[in-house]
């Protein structure tokens, strides 16, 4: 038997009961085995890509793109262009660990925290995730609503489309189908690159900013910290850990697939960094023209603000990009919630390879969260703008706890064997945890003291 055809029949216990989930996953895995046997590298990569690209482009969501746009419009490209690149590199380090743990243990993040550290920490992780995911999902629906409003679509229709998208893509009981639909949508994130090109940036200034990190931001410190923490929360967040690990498990990745999983994450990082930087560059046109970005955030949005500078086509693309960003994130963030709920509520099926009847809790969490977020957005008088601006911040604040568990799991020799973290990965992981903690807590403390003294941002 070929080395890749694990396991040998005698290794499987007699009388083991197979579920439909096993069979559906095995159909996808058969193609992987055949591609590997026949040395078809490109096909192998095509079959194994998915969770990495999706998690990265999914995190280029509504609030993230608005954070990048706010950075460009407020401070120009000087400091934040290289900063965004660095945050994506940090995100790659974290997500690679997440993928590797999933491929080796075949268990999701929530499941592992629950089983290895006990129900208390498992529940705490899940509560953190559900809280941040709910707030983030609200912001995704806001992004879709704002984007569609640019084209004259009424709020009720926009919100209905958002919820229907989650419900329709979830049908079919196949992880592969769900993943490919989401990936096809995610590629439209690159619309922001077209918007950036239409804004005609100076190539020399871009290169200069990437090398020198200048000009440095000026203005109120609290405002700078808010943008800084929001940009970190735009690339490193708890749902990403839950999602990529669980999606890698649902896809059926094994330790042999780690190189392709790593490449998948790398491609996702590059595409997402490109789109994120493009949003910053496009909105920096407003900074160049000395347009007050705070008034834009309070108005009809960046798409309309950019219209006189880059034209109707460009601003229309920005609005489309915003709809796409919200739509893909709704799929991935709802999925991460569903995985976490299924993993933590012991023994419940949690896979897109199950039907709704076989995994009712999983699908109820997936579609229910999207529906709940949609209903909140429709409540008149909700502070939608304030929620959007603070969503990434909350993710940054709650991230250190998730990162510490990830690092412990990635160094857990009992479950990871020889695939524990290397020393450089551990050092990078610890630096990232420390910086995320510092960024979140610095903003929280400065904003809190300013609010007590009545200074505000």
């Amino acid at each position: 038997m070929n080395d890749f055809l694990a396991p040998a029949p005698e290794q499987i216990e007699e009388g083991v009961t197979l579920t439909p989930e096993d069979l559906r996953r095995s159909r996808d895995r058969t193609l992987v085995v055949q591609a590997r046997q026949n040395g078809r590298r490109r096909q192998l990569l095509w079959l194994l890509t998915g969770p990495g690209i999706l998690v990265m482009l999914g995190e280029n969501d509504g609030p993230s793109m608005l954070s990048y746009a706010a950075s460009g419009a407020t401070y120009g490209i000087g400091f934040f262009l290289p900063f965004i690149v660095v945050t994506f590199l940090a995100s790659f380090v974290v997500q690679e660990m997440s993928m590797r743990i999933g491929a080796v243990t075949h268990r999701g993040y929530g499941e592992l925290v629950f089983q290895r550290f006990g129900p208390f920490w498992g529940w705490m992780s899940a509560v953190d995730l559900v809280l941040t995911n709910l707030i983030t999902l609200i912001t995704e629906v806001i992004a879709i609503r704002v984007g569609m409003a640019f084209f004259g679509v009424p709020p009720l229709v926009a919100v209905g489309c958002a919820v229907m998208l989650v419900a329709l893509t979830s049908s079919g009981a196949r992880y592969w189908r769900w993943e490919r639909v989401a990936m096809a949508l995610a590629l439209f994130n690159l619309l922001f690159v077209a918007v950036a090109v239409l804004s005609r940036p100076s190539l020399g200034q871009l290169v200069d900013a990437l090398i020198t990190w200048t000009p440095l931001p000026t203005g109120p410190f609290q405002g700078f910290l808010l943008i800084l923490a929001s940009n970190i929360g735009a690339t490193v967040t708890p749902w990403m850990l839950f999602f990529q690990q669980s999606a890698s498990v649902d896809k059926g990745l094994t330790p042999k697939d780690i190189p392709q999983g790593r490449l998948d994450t790398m491609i996702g990082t590059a595409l997402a960094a490109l789109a994120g930087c493009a949003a910053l560059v496009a909105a920096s046109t407003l900074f160049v023209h000395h347009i007050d970005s705070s008034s834009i955030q309070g108005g009809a949005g960046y798409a309309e603000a950019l219209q006189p500078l880059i034209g109707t086509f460009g601003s229309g693309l920005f609005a489309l990009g915003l709809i796409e960003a919200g739509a893909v994130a709704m799929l991935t963030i709802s999925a991460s919630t569903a995985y976490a709920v299924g993993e933590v509520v012991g023994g419940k099926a949690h896979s897109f390879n199950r039907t709704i009847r076989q995994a009712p809790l999983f699908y109820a969490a997936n579609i229910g969260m999207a529906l709940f977020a949609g209903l909140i957005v429709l409540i008149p008088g909700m502070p939608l703008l304030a929620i959007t601006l603070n969503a990434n911040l909350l993710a940054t604040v709650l991230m250190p706890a998730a990162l510490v568990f990830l690092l412990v799991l990635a160094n857990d020799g009992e479950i990871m064997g020889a695939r524990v973290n290397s020393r450089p990965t551990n050092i990078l992981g610890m630096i990232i945890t420390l910086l995320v903690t510092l960024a979140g807590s610095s903003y929280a403390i400065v904003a809190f003291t300013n609010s007590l003294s009545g200074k505000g941002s």
Partner: protein
Amino acid sequence: MQTIDRLSHGHPDDELILALEPDQLVAATSKPLPRYQLSHTANVALWLLRIFVLLITALVIYTFVKALP
């Protein structure tokens, strides 16, 4: 739940299922892993981190609510 009895030899699904690793089957992943033995120091550190995160979250929520019009 619908299940399929495995390894009645010659079952048409046998060939398919060989593409999965034994510890990848739902039957295997449904078995919980043993608890990690956290040292006292690690336990205290996790608690301190949790308290810190909750405090910072409270500050963020307070600032957010206070800033609402």
